[in-house]
């Protein structure tokens, strides 16, 4: 048997994950993933590549967008560290346009299915003559298109495929720290990659510098207004519920949709069972809720006034005028980064840059303090 066996899909060399079949090693670490590969002969519709933006890029966005493209032309990898609501996705449109016009293959990967669904219409608008495909769990029939938007899980079908692959939310579950998904990502890149993050750490920066990469920072939201600083409110379980009901009623009057985050699915269900007695037009969304895509879609359309949710809506989902409350911000399950992400849901749109983020809890944890400090710091330094 080949003692130097390395899995060609996930690069695993650890013998612990080897199995033996018919006298040969096989890899069991990535075994739940399909190894079926897509047809690489797909031809990009080069002549239809035309970028149309609803809003022009801000000066700072333009500047970074240019830098990214130049780095890619020099065959370098890129990490963009940008505050939530900076318009990260828009920063790579120019590079996509450049690559697509040359018939090169581009893709946009993210750990979360909800983010894929949220991004699809935005790409369809920006490149309205191209075929945009979204690939995620249970939605894998169509795999070929001019721009491929997919979850990191689905990268298993695209080994050595992309001339330019973008990875959004590099610090999000389940991608972060997952050996197999990380290697799928690197193995899917034939040319270069761009990573996007709102909460990247020193290790991410070190890694990309080691891998022939450059780092660009964008500390300003697209509309140039400050990030919303969360307000912390003490309160027992019951007072919290009372306060939330009052706030929701006010939002209702002002016609502002709202997310109420809870740390666990159980808490989510419990909190909603109370809230719905006092405030109508709400619903609950968590990884266990069936029809969650439909509920989120309905919420965006305005059918619901508020959603009680777990961290599955912590990233990506953009809704105009959204307000946010966190029922138990002092939970151990929230770290600084997830609280920053949650706060970042608010004030993202150019015509609704204001809003409120309220954290509730019995104690003001280190994570809460660090989150508020970090947001204040970024606001102060946005012009640097």
């Amino acid at each position: 048997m080949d003692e130097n066996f390395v899995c060609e899909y996930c690069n695993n060399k650890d013998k612990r994950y080897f199995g033996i079949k018919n006298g040969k090693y096989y890899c069991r670490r990535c075994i739940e993933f399909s190894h079926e590969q897509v047809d690489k002969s797909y031809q990009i519709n080069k002549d239809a590549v035309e970028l149309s933006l609803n809003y022009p890029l801000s000066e700072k966005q333009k500047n970074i967008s240019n830098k990214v493209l130049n780095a890619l032309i020099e065959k370098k990898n890129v990490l963009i560290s940008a505050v939530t609501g900076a318009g990260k996705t828009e920063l790579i449109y120019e590079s996509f346009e450049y690559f697509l016009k040359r018939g090169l293959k581009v893709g946009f990967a993210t750990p979360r299915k909800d983010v894929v669904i949220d991004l699809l219409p935005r790409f369809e608008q920006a490149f309205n003559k191209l075929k945009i495909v979204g690939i995620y769990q249970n939605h894998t029939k169509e795999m070929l298109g001019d721009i491929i938007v997919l979850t990191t899980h689905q990268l298993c079908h695209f080994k050595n495929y992309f001339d330019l692959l973008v990875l959004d939310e590099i610090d999000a579950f389940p991608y972060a720290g997952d050996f197999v998904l990380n290697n799928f990502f690197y193995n899917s890149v034939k040319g270069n990659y761009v990573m996007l993050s709102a909460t990247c750490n020193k290790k991410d920066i070190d890694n990309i510098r080691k891998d022939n990469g450059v780092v660009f920072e964008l500390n300003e939201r697209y509309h140039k207004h400050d990030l919303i600083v969360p307000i912390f409110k003490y309160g027992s379980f019951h007072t919290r519920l009372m306060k939330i009901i009052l706030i929701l009623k006010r939002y209702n009057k002002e016609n502002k949709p709202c997310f109420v985050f809870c740390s666990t699915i159980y808490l989510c269900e419990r909190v909603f069972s109370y809230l719905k007695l006092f405030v109508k037009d709400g619903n609950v969304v968590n990884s266990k809720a069936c029809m969650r895509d439909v509920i989120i879609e309905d919420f965006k359309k305005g059918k619901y006034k508020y959603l009680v949710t777990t961290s599955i809506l912590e990233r990506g989902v953009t809704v105009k005028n959204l307000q946010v409350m966190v029922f138990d911000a002092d939970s151990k399950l929230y770290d600084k980064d997830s609280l920053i992400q949650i706060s970042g849901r608010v004030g993202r749109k150019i015509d609704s840059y204001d809003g409120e983020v309220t954290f509730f809890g019995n104690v003001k944890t280190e994570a809460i303090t660090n989150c508020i400090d970090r947001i204040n710091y970024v606001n102060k330094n946005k012009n640097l």
Partner: protein
Amino acid sequence: MLIKTKICKRCFKNYIPSLIEELFYDKSEFCLDCLNKLENKIRYFKLCDCKCESLYDYENDYESKTVIDLIKNKYDIELTNMFIIKYLLYLKIKFYNYTICFAPSSKSSFNKRGFDHLHEMFKLLNNKKIDCFIKTQDIEQKHLNKVERLNINKYIKLNIDKKELKNKRILLVDDVMTTGSTLKACLELLKTCECKKIMGLVLLKHI
């Protein structure tokens, strides 16, 4: 004293086999946590007047569904012992003088997997084993609808001389039972062979 740790073939973690485990789950390569996730659920039932039993429920048991999927659709041969190991002692005692007959499986799925999953799943039982059925058409059951499944008996034939089964105790085995039509077809054929006794055993049963 040297404590031997093993690597669990299901969760890949190190574990120390306990004495009890070694006794009951002979040669197990799975940690107790993983084994306990499979929910033992023996069900007795009759098909064509033959006594049959199933060891796990297919519904409600997320782990058993996952494991059978890994074996059959992801071709993971290392998990094949997992279902039998929890019942090894029981099955060895209950069926010690039986000859195991395998329900027929599709040739094309064998080619894809690179191993015969049914043979592998029962390899810890030392009984005499025979492949006494063939499918005259190479069809994979999962592509059939309910009516087509009921007509499966048209495609199943005996593969050996009936004399070979005469006066023997026969245990017909299969992995997953959905409508039971395959098993019924096999049992009807076995009944024509003058066996001493015929029983059925499936690992997972749809309830």
